């Protein structure tokens, strides 16, 4: 699955890069299919390109091959294979990735992951997520 997913996401990045004023790309990493697709729909509705990832490994696999880095990553902290915590640590330790804004998503209000640009506790109002991504995308430009 991971390989096919990455191939598809890579080609979608290339497509979007060819378009003038391409929409900002957001990686949505969430292992729950339902929630990932809903967030993806909402973000696409709001004019973003979405790269879905169902675990932490798919996020880092994508970042390894992406020519243009995403405008932001929405990152669930509890995911199989490679957790969001691990992804966050990796992102902040690599010079090329370290400036990517990361919105961490968690079910526990106590979680305060270091390195996250912002933290959202599930369930969260989608406009909160959109506001955070807008800030992140604006910061990019």
């Amino acid at each position, binding site marked *: 699955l991971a390989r096919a997913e990455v191939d598809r996401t890579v080609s979608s990045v290339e497509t979007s890069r060819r378009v003038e004023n391409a929409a900002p790309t957001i990686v949505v990493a969430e292992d729950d299919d339902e929630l990932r697709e809903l967030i993806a729909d909402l973000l696409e509705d709001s004019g973003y390109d979405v790269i879905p990832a169902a675990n932490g490994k798919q996020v880092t696999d994508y970042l390894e091959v992406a020519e243009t880095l995403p405008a932001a990553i929405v990152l669930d902290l509890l995911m199989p294979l490679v957790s969001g915590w691990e992804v966050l640590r990796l992102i902040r330790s690599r010079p090329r990735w370290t400036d990517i804004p990361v919105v961490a998503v968690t079910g526990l209000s106590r979680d305060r992951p270091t390195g996250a640009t912002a933290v959202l506790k*599930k369930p969260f109002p989608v406009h909160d997520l959109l506001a955070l991504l807008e800030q992140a995308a604006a910061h990019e430009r």
Partner: protein
Amino acid sequence: MSRPAVLAVDDRAANLLALEALFERFDLDLVTGSSGRDAIRLASERPFAVMLIDVVMPDMDGFETVRALRALPLAAQTPIILLTAYEFDPRDIESLQGTGLVDYVGKPIAAGLLRGKVEALVSLYRRGEALAAKDRDIAILAHDLQTPLASISAGTELLVRSARDQHTQEIGQRVAQTVQRMSDMVSDLTDYARVGRGAIPVKARPLDLATLADEVARDCHQLEGGARVRLEAEGDAQGEWDPDRLYQAVSNLVVNALRYGEGDVRVRTAGDGASVLLSVQNFGTPIPAPRLSTIFEPFQRGTQRPNDDRRGLGLGLYIVRAIVSAHGGSVHASSSQQSGTLFTLRLPRQAPATPP
């Protein structure tokens, strides 16, 4: 679940062999040592269901060994059976008071007696382990419930966005509120499962209670939109506590005050010698005395409002008390028309060490 382990310590190899034979058919791991020092080394590596300790040993005798074991987090509460060939000096027994469950069996050992005691203690230990495992499972499952709630919330927002009429907007609003309420209940359930057995691990580090109160006030302001929290700090509010746990306790109190009170909420911190006080005060309908007396019990609520759609499970204050007790502190509640409803935490500046 792994097999429960029983520690047997005796300086004579023959005695250890006899014990091994005694428990051969039991579903447990008998771990043996030949000195008090062995006992301490083994008991700091893993938890034991029961420890059998010979009284007469060279170097460190059984009594000394028990006292040293009680200082180890993993052995602080473990039942100990002393094995002895002679009558105790009563003063020796006195000296062990307050060191948890200690029993003894005389030598030569009556096999049935010792087996019976160990069997009973091991089965208690197993039950404790099963309860703890269940609490962990509930905490994980409750936490997992937040994800479908997030889907309901996001899905509703999607629907409301595409339908712009007011009726749909109102329904969407109501679903969002219900999701939030259920999410709060699930959070409470998660916490309840975590404090279920009363032993909350405390990871203490230096902390200023006034800073923590400020943090809670800011987060609650965001959550409860517009409600105001007034902070007052007096004297030195520094100590060593678990920041996550205390954040949870203080925010439970502040959120309650915002929800059930009227007007501003006052949060005061004050240094008081070896303790620090934190109080949360709100005005509005006071809590009746009979309710006040049981308010820290689980599944209780102070004020019941008609049409209140923000009812929780009534676990918030139970969790507050559990957290404060784990820090060696106390919590007190009072309520009257004149001075409002006041919750006061008293925390020793240094939280006592707790077994993990």
